């Protein structure tokens, strides 16, 4: 496939998906959620025909969201990376089965969530303290940052994997309840209920931190 055609397919309202950071803000994430941007149907067709550069564009456009979802479910960086790689590999193998009438992001999100949940089932959730130390919270006081991180991490790890997934898909990635239900194979009402419980736990952790401070 020629480069101009790929560039044309990946244009988003005058922008081009060159890096995941391009879709970092919520407004754009929600636009991507509605899939008005890249013609993923065309990219999928090109990838099906053996065009690796088309699949690379798909990866570039979705890896950040895939990583965040996987990370919320498996809780640590190494497993999240494994789950994301497995998910994209699975998606590549299953390109023939992708229905262009269905949003690509939701289709891939389901694959990512399943890959991560499978990993959790196989390895079981690792201990809370194994969460990556590389994360940095926006607090200047190292003690406060460490304390908040520990509490949030504990609260997050205390949730069932599915509730973590729902929380992150909704609040961080901007998916709708119906989409989350579709991706995780459960009714929309269950997604709402899971979100409610997960948020309550996280809010408690944040509130306790503020009260103690």
């Amino acid at each position, binding site marked *: 496939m020629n480069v101009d055609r790929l560039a044309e397919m990946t244009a988003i309202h005058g922008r081009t998906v060159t*890096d*995941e*950071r391009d879709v970092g803000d*919520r407004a754009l994430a929600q636009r991507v959620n509605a899939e008005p941007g890249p013609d993923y149907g065309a990219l999928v067709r090109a990838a099906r025909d053996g065009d*690796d550069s088309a*699949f*690379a564009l798909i*990866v*570039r456009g979705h*890896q*950040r969201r895939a*990583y*965040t979802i996987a*990370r*919320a479910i498996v809780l640590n*960086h190494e497993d999240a*990376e494994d789950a*994301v*790689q497995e998910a*994209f*590999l699975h998606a*590549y*193998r299953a390109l023939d089965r992708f229905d262009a009438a269905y949003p690509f992001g939701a289709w891939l999100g389901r694959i990512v969530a399943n890959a991560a949940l499978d990993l959790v089932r196989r390895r079981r959730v690792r201990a809370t303290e194994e*969460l*990556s130390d*590389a*994360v*940095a*919270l*926006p607090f200047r006081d190292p003690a406060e940052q460490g304390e*908040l*991180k520990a509490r*949030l*991490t504990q609260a*997050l790890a205390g949730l069932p994997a599915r509730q973590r997934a729902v*929380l*992150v898909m*909704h*609040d*961080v990635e*901007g998916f709708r*309840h119906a989409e989350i239900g579709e991706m995780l194979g459960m*009714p*929309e*009402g*269950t997604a*709402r*209920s899971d*979100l*409610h419980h997960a*948020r309550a736990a*996280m*809010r408690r952790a*944040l509130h306790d931190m503020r009260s103690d401070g």
Partner: protein
Amino acid sequence: MTDSDLRFPDDAPDSAVAGALRPLLAPPHDDYWGTLERAIMARIAEERGAWWSALGDWARPAMLAAAVALIAATVLLSRSNSADAAIAYSAMSEEQYPVVESTTAAANVPAATVHMLLDH
């Protein structure tokens, strides 16, 4: 009441929770995405390579097996045709005409009887 009837005041994203979660879910460094993309594409290339090399490994024996099967099928078909032809020839050459013989025999019975009675 159905699941869709349940309503929680949770339709809008919670910015406080999201803000607290984002750093926890961040990758180890900012330029991680290029690394991840390369790792994924390497897995894809490996997958394609494995497929092609598996095909290459199997191609030669598979072609040999196909040739043997083709020869065997040809020989069997040829033998089968010969056997059918032999059976058909045999059937035709040994075919009887009972109606003609029976008619002749029946026609000769009264004459023989007359000859026997006259002789005695």
